C-alpha cells in the first residue's frame, strides 16, 4: 500500500447553515495524479481551499505531505504548490518579476537560476522580460504552473486548470502535468470538469456530490468495475446520480 500524500478524516466545512463539505475522508497516494470530479457547487474548490489551508475546516482534519492543515498550516504551505482557477498575476510586471516575487514568498533567496530551470522544464523560455499583461490565457496558465512548482513542492493542487483554455492549451497543460508527475514524482490533485482529460492524465479519481465523496478508486479499477459503460462520462453520471447497482 502506498503512503498517503493527502489524507482527510471526516473533513467538513460549513458556511452558516450550508454544508459545503460533509465528512470527507479520502486518501491520495504519493506520486498519484488524482482527479476530483463533481458538478458545480459539489464542494471541489472548497476541498482544495481547505487542503491548501486557505480555509479552515469546520470539523475533521487533513494531512498534506505529512503536515496537518489545522495544526501545521505553515508546514503544509511549504510543501505544496497551488494554481487557483482563473488566477491573474501582476500584469504590469514581467514574467521574471512575477516569478521572483512568488519564489521569494516560498523562501527562495536567489531564485533566478531556479526560475530559468522551471521555465526550461515548461518549455517557456524567451518570455521572461515580457509583461504578463500581454500573455494569452494559455501562457498565463503556464505562468501559474511555473509559480506553483518553483520551490519543488511534493504536492501540486490545480483547481480547474483547463478552464478557458483552447484545445492546444489543454494539450500543452496535460503534457506538463504528466511530465511533472513522471519526471519529478509530484503528487497532483486537480479539480476538473473535463472527463476526457481525466482519462488521459489521472491515475485515480474521486467524485463529490453535495459535499459528500460518493466514489474513490484508481481510474483503472473504476473503468473495470463498469464494463457495460462506454466511457468515463457514462460512469461519472451513474456514480454522480447515485444510480449504481
Amino acid at each position: 500500500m502506498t503512503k498517503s500524500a493527502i489524507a482527510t478524516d471526516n473533513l467538513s466545512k460549513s458556511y452558516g447553515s450550508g454544508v459545503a463539505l460533509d465528512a470527507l475522508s479520502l486518501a491520495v497516494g504519493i506520486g498519484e495524479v488524482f482527479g476530483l470530479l463533481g458538478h458545480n457547487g459539489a464542494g471541489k474548490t472548497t476541498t482544495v481551499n481547505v487542503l491548501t489551508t486557505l480555509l479552515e475546516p469546520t470539523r475533521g482534519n487533513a494531512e498534506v505531505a505529512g503536515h496537518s492543515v489545522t495544526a501545521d498550516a505553515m508546514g503544509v504551505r511549504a510543501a505544496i504548490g497551488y494554481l487557483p482557477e482563473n488566477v491573474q498575476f501582476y500584469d504590469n510586471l514581467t514574467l521574471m518579476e512575477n516569478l521572483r516575487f512568488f519564489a521569494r514568498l516560498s523562501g527562495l533567496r536567489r531564485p533566478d537560476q531556479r526560475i530559468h530551470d522551471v521555465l526550461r522544464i515548461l518549455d517557456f523560455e524567451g518570455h521572461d522580460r515580457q509583461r504578463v499583461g500581454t500573455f494569452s490565457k494559455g501562457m498565463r496558465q503556464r505562468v501559474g504552473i511555473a509559480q506553483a512548482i518553483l520551490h519543488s513542492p511534493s504536492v501540486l493542487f490545480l483547481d480547474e486548470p483547463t478552464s478557458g483554455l483552447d484545445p492546444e492549451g489543454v494539450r500543452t497543460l496535460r503534457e506538463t502535468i504528466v511530465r511533472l508527475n513522471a519526471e519529478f514524482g509530484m503528487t497532483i490533485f486537480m479539480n476538473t470538469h473535463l472527463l476526457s482529460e481525466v482519462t488521459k492524465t489521472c491515475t485515480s479519481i474521486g467524485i463529490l456530490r453535495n459535499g459528500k465523496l460518493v466514489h474513490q478508486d484508481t481510474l483503472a479499477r473504476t473503468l473495470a468495475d463498469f464494463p457495460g459503460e462506454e466511457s468515463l462520462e457514462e460512469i461519472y453520471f451513474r456514480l454522480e446520480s447515485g444510480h449504481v447497482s
Partner: protein
Amino acid sequence: MLTTRRARTAHLLLFVFIGMIIASSIIGWVTNRTVTGVYEKVVADGLTTAPNPFAGVTPLYYLRNAVIYVVLIGSLMAIVLGVQATLRDRKAATTDLVLSRPVGSVSRLLGQLAGLGVVLAASIGISFFVSWVIISVINGAPLGWADTGRVIGFALLSWVLLTTFALLGMLTGLRSKQETTALLVPFVIWSAVAFVLPQIGTAARPVSLLNPVPAVSSTGGYFDIVSMVTGPVSMTEQFKTASSIILQDTAVTGNAAFSILILVGVLAVMMVIVAATPRSRMRSGLNE
C-alpha cells in the same frame, strides 16, 4: 512595491505631488521677488521707511505652502495607492496565491505597507530634496544644518501623515465590497478630517467667523469642549500645526509635541487595525 511603482495612476499622482511641492518653493520665491521689487521702487520714490516685509523671513518660508499640498494632494495620492495595493490582489485573486505560501496574513499586509511606505518616502524625499535645492538657490547658499534638519523633520511628519492615509486606503480596499466604495469611503473620511472637523472647531466660535477683528479668546464652556474633542481627531490640523511650528511659522501657535504624538498614535492604531484583517476578508471577492 514594484507594481505600485509601475501603476500609471501612481505615476500621475506622484508627478502632481512633486510638482506642487516644487511649485510651492517657486511661488514663494516669485512672491519674494515681486514684493521686494515693489518695495524697492516704493523706497526709491521715498514713499515708505518701513522695512522690507521679506527682510526677516526664514529660508523655510518658501516651504510653508507645501504643508497644504501634502494635506491635499499627498493625502489623496496615499489613499489611491493604499486602495490599489489591496484591491488589486482581491480583484486578481492573487491573494490566494500569496496566502497558500508559507507567509502569514500579518506579514503579507505589513509587507504591502512597507512597500507603500518606501514609495511614499521616495516621493517625499524627491520632492523635499528638490525644494531644498531651490531654496538654497534662492537663498544664495545651501541651507544650514538647523534648517536642513527642520526640512527633514517636516518630511518625516509628511510621511507619517501620508502613510496613515495609505493605511486608510488599504483598509477600505480590504473591507469594501465594491471598487467604487473602496475609493469613495476614504475620500469622504479624508474630506471630513481635512475640512469638516476643523470647521466644527471654527463654527464653535461663530464670532470669529463674522468679525474680522480677532475675538477675545474665551476659556471653558461648550465651545472649548467641542474643540478639545474634534481637535485631536482632525489629524490634518495637527499636521498643519506641527509642520508650521517646525518650519518656524510664528503665526501658528500650539504644542508641536502633542500634535506629533497624535499623528504617530493614529498611525500606530491604523497599522494595528490593518494588520488584524482576517484571511477570509483578504481573500473575499468583489460584488462586481
